[in-house]
């Protein structure tokens, strides 16, 4: 499990960011004593640091250059001031990303995932399996008993979300939110159409009723 350290002085944001990141499968630690930030970083040994710029005591830039003195873990700057000077400073001091508040959580998570993937490459190919059906992310193909069907971008993302939350009920709203976060602007009708198409493809490769509709609640695998 990847470890993320949060350096953020606003308590609510700190707690909520912790909730968000642990909900997405990261081990999270938040700095509470800002006079000991560096010691806490050294003790926790995170894979990535989320760093606010305005902090009590040393500011984010100073902390960043101190971190760079002993480590090159990815550093994500998060700030409410979006001046060019700050952005330039953060890049000059070795920051890997610069995100302004109020941030879009999907974008923040995507940035974190991308940075972690680049810093700690893992060779495994991405696929999910559930009830004998395999979803290949790289080739955008669904497979059941050696039979394959090609998926469109929308269909792949819908299935990805369902596989990731396999066994749980996914509300239509949550699925659409997820698609929007992936720059696929699908509305309610289009979602129904896409799900129908996926079902057709699954029927063709011999698995009926793989995606079940929960009335007034959403879909589930």
């Amino acid at each position: 499990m990847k470890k993320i350290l949060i350096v953020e002085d606003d308590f609510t944001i700190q707690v909520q960011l912790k909730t968000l990141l642990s909900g997405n499968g990261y081990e999270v630690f938040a700095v509470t004593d800002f006079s000991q930030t560096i010691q806490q970083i050294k003790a926790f040994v995170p894979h990535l640091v989320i760093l606010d710029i305005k902090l009590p005591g040393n500011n984010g830039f100073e902390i960043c250059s101190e971190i760079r003195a002993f480590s090159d873990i990815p550093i994500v700057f998060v700030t409410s001031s979006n001046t060019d000077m700050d952005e330039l400073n953060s890049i000059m001091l070795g920051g890997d990303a610069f995100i302004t508040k109020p941030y879009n959580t999907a974008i923040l998570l995507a940035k974190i995932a991308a940075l972690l993937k680049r810093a700690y490459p893992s060779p495994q190919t991405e696929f999910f399996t559930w009830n004998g059906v395999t979803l290949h992310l790289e080739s955008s193909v669904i497979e059941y008993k050696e039979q394959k069907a090609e998926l469109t971008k929308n269909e792949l993302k819908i299935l990805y979300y369902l596989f990731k939350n396999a066994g749980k009920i996914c509300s239509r709203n949550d699925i659409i939110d997820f698609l929007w976060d992936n720059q696929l602007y699908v509305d309610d009708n289009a979602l129904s159409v896409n799900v129908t198409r996926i079902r057709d493809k699954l029927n063709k490769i011999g698995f009926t009723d793989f995606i079940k509709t929960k009335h007034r609640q959403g879909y589930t695998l």
Partner: protein
Amino acid sequence: MSGKLYLKNQIPAILVNLMGMLALALFLLASGNQFQTVMFIFMVWFIILTTYLSVVYYARKRYLNQLLDMTEQLEERYLMPEIMTIPEKADEQVFYQIMKMAEKSMLEKIGAIQNEQKEYKEYIEQWIHEVKTPITAMKLLCENNCSPFAREILAELENINQYTEQALYYARSKHTEKDYSVREIDLCDVVHSAIADNKYLLRQSNMTITIDDIKNRVYTDDKWVRFILNQIIGNAIKYRTEQPVLHFSTIKTNDRIVLFISDNGIGIPQSDLPRIFEKGFTGRNGRIKKDSTGIGLYLCKRLCDKLGIGLTAHSENKGTTVALSFQLNDFVTGVQG
């Protein structure tokens, strides 16, 4: 300088001369001189006097006209005492001193106002950065506990964020200093991030979004363009009709890339179109929707002018198309290869 007034000002001198002439005439006549001799002296005196007066008049007129011209050419006229030569006449020097004093107090006043304005701008910027912390906290709280209720709050938060951004850019646009940096950006990325900024509002209004394959790269400031797109998307949401549609597309011509944002909303009447970028102009749509401020598009225009982006709006009865055209000059295409 008016000749009449000059002559009027010279009346005492002329009178003194006339009196001198009269006294001399009486004296000369009393001491037995001939009338013709007296007349001759009289004539000579008169000629000398008028010559003197007119020479002085024209010399003064030339000097003063020069000063007047100089002042008129000056952009900041209150700085005149700085460039004019110090006059030689005693009374003129007094006036010069008065002008100097007036200039000094004027400069002090301007300096004070500029300082005040700068402080105010800094305060607004600081305030906006501070208010973004609770906005972020609320956004995270809602997204971590996503319910229909939270979704509505998230939509309102997007509105709040838009208004604070508007205030920030308004404060910035008032200043001549450069607050932007131009770099190569992907138009597609900016469009997607502007949509992400308005995600919950767009979802709430059931907007259908279609994006053509946008692959163009332009040289501009992404933050400013994102703000401009946010305002345009905000308008599309505000003035939508049933089954709203928002369409993004680009056209590339020889020297420019044009990004079109079209909606099928209530449109803008032809009579209002020429004025929509004016500050405070709300027009017919403003009367329909009470929350129009007439600031959004005005700011867009100002920012576009600074960045050198062409901004036009087009509307025929129904629907509006806004076009942002980015220049591609020789240098830029050269860099792109």
